[in-house]
């Protein structure tokens, strides 16, 4: 069975932001992660586009603010 989307998103967020994977939950967001700033959003965008082989628009990139939001954006993209 392929890895669930949410887990893959948590992995990317963990790698890019330098958080232990067990600390990254669906609710993890830019509100509680200090270095989840505009630079990290670009880094996340680059990593997510590559990991999921999708192209995100600048508007969608603006939504990369929590694991939940990222998962939602990807669910729509990959549907």
């Amino acid at each position, binding site marked *: 069975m392929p890895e669930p989307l949410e887990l893959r998103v948590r*992995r*990317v967020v963990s*790698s*890019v932001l*330098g958080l232990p994977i067990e600390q990254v939950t669906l609710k993890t967001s830019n509100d509680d992660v200090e270095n989840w700033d*505009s*630079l990290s959003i*670009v*880094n996340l*965008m*680059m*990593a997510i*586009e*590559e*990991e999921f082989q999708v*192209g995100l*628009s*600048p508007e969608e*990139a603006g939504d990369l603010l929590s694991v939940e939001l990222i998962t939602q954006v990807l669910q729509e993209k990959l549907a």
Partner: protein
Amino acid sequence: MTATAKRTSAEYHQRARELEAASAERPVKIAVLASFTAELLKPYIVVESADLGFRIAPWFAPFGQLEQVIMDPASPLWKGEYDLIWIALRLEDLDPHLHHEHPALGPERTTARLDALRSRVIAAAKAARANTRATLLLSNFAFSSLYAPGVFDASDPNGFGHLLAATNWQLAKDAAAVSDTHVFDYQGVVNASGASGWADPKLWYMARAVCSAPNHAALAQGLARAVSALVRPAVKCIVLDLDNTLWGGVLGDDGIEGIKLGDDYPGNVFKEFQGALLGLHQRGFLLAIATKNDEATVLEALRSHPEMVLREKHFASIFANWDSKPANLRRIAEALNIGPDAMLFIDDNPVERAQMRAELPMVHVLELPTDTTSYVAALLDCSLFDRPRLLLEDRHRGEIYEQSRERLKHLESGASLEQALRDLRMMAQVGEAGPQTLDRIHQLIQKTNQFNVTTRRHRLEEVRDLSKAPDAKVAWLRLQDRYGAQGLVCVGILRKLEPHCWEVDTFLMSCRVGGRRVEAAFMGYLAELARGAGATRLRGVFRPTSKNEPVRRLYPELGFRSVPASSKDSELVFEIELEDGVLPWPDLIAREENPKRHDA
């Protein structure tokens, strides 16, 4: 260099964090002053430098602030003790409409706009140079896909591409006029990766990202190679296998007539590989052979095969026998007096390569591809040959080692050592550092490991400052003998400690002139310089490293007395009173006075 990243973005981030957490050795600290969002390069720079065997710790000035950061004495740029400053301004960031306007502007006004940009980079470099001894690296200018020239741009002598090339040429000339300042070939990196896919317009418009996500790795790799060439020593010797490396087939089985070497496939692959190695030899890399073969047959092949590009005289050392490759590599290291960490091993056999890595992990091993048609590319892509510039000594190094084999035969000829040394008819020239000698002096300071009493790796700018300082002296010695010129082989730096006591800050000698009393001559010269500056006492320090054990007893052997060391336990301190007749110049070395005080 390819646009295909070896890792995913997420993996670069992960790996960079691991490296930053684990690394114990001091990284090369670089400051990046860019007209784009250079922070995005950070994990790529950390990982790519580690892949080359060192570590870069980058700091990024606030985006787009060049003059502000350089001109402000309180800026963090001047607090970080950076080894290197990369000034990365891009045409497309600073004059984004020039390309669109160029056809209407015409060549003069376009050139004036390009000149303004180049002048800005050079002015920044000069302003930085006034404040720092860090090496300076200046990006040249490139097209990206967003700014690709028209189909007939190249057809027009005033086309944008030609004007840009002229600007880059002038930038190189301007940079060469600022000391320890080099051009980073940003244009070359863009072209190698593919200009058409270089930029990602979305990332640029959104975030001022310099290029697409995968190209961040290519740019970081290009940067890491440039930094590596500027701050790390290059390899000194290439140790080669023969069968299926320098020629196709097996000499012992196929015979001299049967090996594949010539102008048609598959011989042309090996002939060109030899040609590339000859080019490296001419750039100052020593060649040596470690092969499981019969020595007489090997020499016969090198001497008589009509298609052989590399001949016996090109090899500083040849070991053809049935011993293991690591054993032969050790012998080569000993014969040439260089450390295994300055050697690159090339062998088509993966088992031999694995054995070398296992037994001598400090030796660099080239991952030669199984496809022989990729041999030349694999060789030339090796970052260990990168050097910012070629010195006269580099070009002649191969010849110098050739002469040294003659010299060795001479010294082993049976006469007494004293007589043999006299028969060498050595002649030394000494002088104080000047513009003509600084680069070579700096090179020796960076790479001399064994005959180096303090191993202080002064940067080029520090050496220049010391050479001009009233309380310091930077001196050199050149040697020649009946077998030829050996070039500049000794470097010494003196510093005033007290009015009457000077200290030898640096005393080093190229190992190829060891055992010939040259060190006594050079110390005699340093003593004269110190005396001339009013010193009555000379102090020397031995700072042990893993490699300079051979000079532990240098000072006592020259007549210095040991004095109790003050601060650091491992340091040994020696002194000598500069009375008449101490530290005499050995009479078996003739001395040629340098006519000018400075050799400019």
